[in-house]
């Protein structure tokens, strides 16, 4: 597998100056909206503690909870399938669809199905898969993967979307009004909801006590996919289990607040039983998760609820765009997940970070993201997967970048919002994301001094 060169890939994005500037601004805006919501919930940090503890408990009893979930889902009349890996997941889904003579599948956004590359698999077998989330639809029509786990087309400007829609949906190429574009997506997608023989969603949570799969969306597309066609499928990663319905409150209170800064998604949907005369199939997917569960330094990454807050706050992600990470997951969470799939392919990713710890501070389930990034760097150096430039970069940027403890001493757990990182950290000549505004590395100011001078100003 070819090694992903994040620095080179991000240089393409950075060349699109307008996109990069907007991307940076838009994601920073989401981060600030998130801060605003956090301040509105007095028990925020208590909720984070609880969320983290509930996840740790569940993951430490995962086999029991999986069986409990399966029992209850079956009692509800759902079919439960188990998939070891992406290939088996795709095969199971295809078999279900083929058995029911499905030609068209309407689908809501699911990072798991991206991970499994389900869409091309089904396309090769003659099944038309329609992504119904607007951002995901834009990406599908442009033949690109999502660049962000919550806002898949965030790297595109309205003009880019107008081009894609004009080319693929026949809309007016000169009309780039987002209202017009969104309406085009609505009216061209609607016939698929009516024609599709099956609908598919992912799952944000799966409740062991009730056998319910819970999906959080804003557009209503997941519910259209689930409530209109007779056959319903949901693919769920095995780490998505939580013990009881009451635990949903803890996660739902934080998910959308962390993701886009709204108190809740417009739709929080709980699927338990098939509709009358229909079927509900739930596919529980491992695909590397059980193995990750045994990795001492990395198993807590399975607590992730895919809110994207760590991406929105990350100065490197904001400037380089999700596609430059070359994996399904991007940003800080992508840095710690992708290498578990392929260490060599993603050996550059752990360097796409300044280790400033901002990701860790915003994470609603308290994953020590930046420490895991640092840990991946160590593993990579032990495996001799360190690319030459990175070796040099580590020397130049010195102790602070390489040693998260130095950061921890300064930023601790203050959840400080850092819109601008010190230039000497971001813009070394080894980092493409700094190239455009290249500043000679003049570390006459230490990180610590910079921090003392700047904290509280943004």
């Amino acid at each position, binding site marked *: 597998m070819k090694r992903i060169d994040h620095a080179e890939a991000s240089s393409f994005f950075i060349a699109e100056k307008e996109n990069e500037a907007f991307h940076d601004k838009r994601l920073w805006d989401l981060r600030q909206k998130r801060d605003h919501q956090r301040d509105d919930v007095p028990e925020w940090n208590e909720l984070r503690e609880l969320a983290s503890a509930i996840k740790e408990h569940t993951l430490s009893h995962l086999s029991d909870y999986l069986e409990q979930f399966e029992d209850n889902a079956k009692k509800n009349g759902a079919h439960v399938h188990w998939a070891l890996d992406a290939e088996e997941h795709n095969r199971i889904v295809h078999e279900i669809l083929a058995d029911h003579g499905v030609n068209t599948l309407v689908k809501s956004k699911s990072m798991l199905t991206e991970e499994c590359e389900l869409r091309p698999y089904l396309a090769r077998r003659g099944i038309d898969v329609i992504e119904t989330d607007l951002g995901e639809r834009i990406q599908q029509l442009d033949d690109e993967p999502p660049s962000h786990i919550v806002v898949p087309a965030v790297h595109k400007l309205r003009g880019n979307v107008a081009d894609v829609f004009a080319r693929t949906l026949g809309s007016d190429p000169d009309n780039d009004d987002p209202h017009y574009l969104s309406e085009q997506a609505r009216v061209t997608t609607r016939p698929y909801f009516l024609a599709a023989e099956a609908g598919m969603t992912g799952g944000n949570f799966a409740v062991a006590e009730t056998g*319910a799969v819970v999906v959080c969306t804003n557009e209503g597309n997941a519910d259209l996919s689930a409530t209109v066609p007779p056959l319903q499928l949901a693919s769920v990663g095995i780490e998505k289990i939580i013990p009881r319905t009451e635990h949903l409150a803890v996660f739902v209170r934080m998910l959308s607040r962390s993701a886009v800064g709204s108190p809740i998604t417009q739709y929080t949907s709980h699927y338990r039983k098939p509709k009358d005369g229909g079927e509900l199939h739930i596919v529980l997917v491992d695909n590397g998760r059980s193995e990750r569960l045994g990795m001492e330094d990395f198993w807590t990454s399975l607590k992730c609820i895919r809110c994207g807050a760590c991406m929105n706050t990350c100065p490197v992600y904001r400037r380089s765009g999700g596609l430059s990470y070359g994996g399904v997951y991007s940003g800080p969470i992508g840095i710690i997940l992708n290498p578990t799939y392929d260490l060599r392919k993603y050996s550059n990713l752990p360097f796409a970070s300044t280790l400033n710890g901002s990701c860790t501070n915003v994470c609603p389930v308290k994953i020590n993201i930046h420490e895991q990034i640092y840990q991946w760097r160590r593993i990579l150096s032990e495996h001799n997967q360190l690319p030459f430039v990175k070796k040099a970069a580590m020397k130049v940027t010195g102790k602070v970048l390489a040693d998260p403890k130095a950061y921890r001493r300064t930023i601790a757990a203050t959840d400080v919002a850092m819109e601008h990182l010190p230039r000497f950290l971001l813009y070394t000549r080894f980092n493409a994301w700094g190239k455009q505004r290249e500043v000679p590395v003049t570390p006459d100011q230490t990180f610590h001094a910079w921090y003392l001078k700047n904290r509280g100003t943004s």
Partner: protein
Amino acid sequence: MSSRKMILDAVSRNQPSAASLPEVPAFDRDLPPPWQQFQERLAGMGGKFARPVPDGNFDALVRELHPDANIICSATPEVTGNRDLSDVREPKDLDDVDVGVVRAAFGIAETGSVYLSEMEFGVNALGFLSQHLVVLLDPTDVVGNLHHAYRRREFADAAYAVLMTGPSATADIEGVLIHGAQGVRSLTVVEAPRPSV
């Protein structure tokens, strides 16, 4: 060996040492008056709030809210409409509905959400294929926060349940907020005490 067994075996083998499950408090001290907060949060999520209906003529209100509507389909006894839900054979029959009308089982002040399930919808797609949704809600049915909501037994009984908060929305193009992405274009909550039995 089945994949099921292989996954469960691998999980048992690898799962970290047992961590305990914390109690989740209700976080309900000093909550603001629920009905007022519900209205504020609903507005914040793009939902609307209708004028009071002292004469109980909800049909007139729905007409007033949506004067151009041709097809009104109601799952409530309060509103008659002109499309009978019992005639619906398949969910997609509801494709041409302009306004759907339902009564929420309860609301949530913290988020401005309403709880709806197959019990309330009759046909679940009514909440999504309709162009607009009108939701009747009794102010005494509003709970303070999500902890209270998720302790209600409705979740254990429903085949399908949704917390719906304002209309369908997207901000996927340059962060511009647009209502009516795929689901309903507007959601209006009407204060409607439950008829006494």
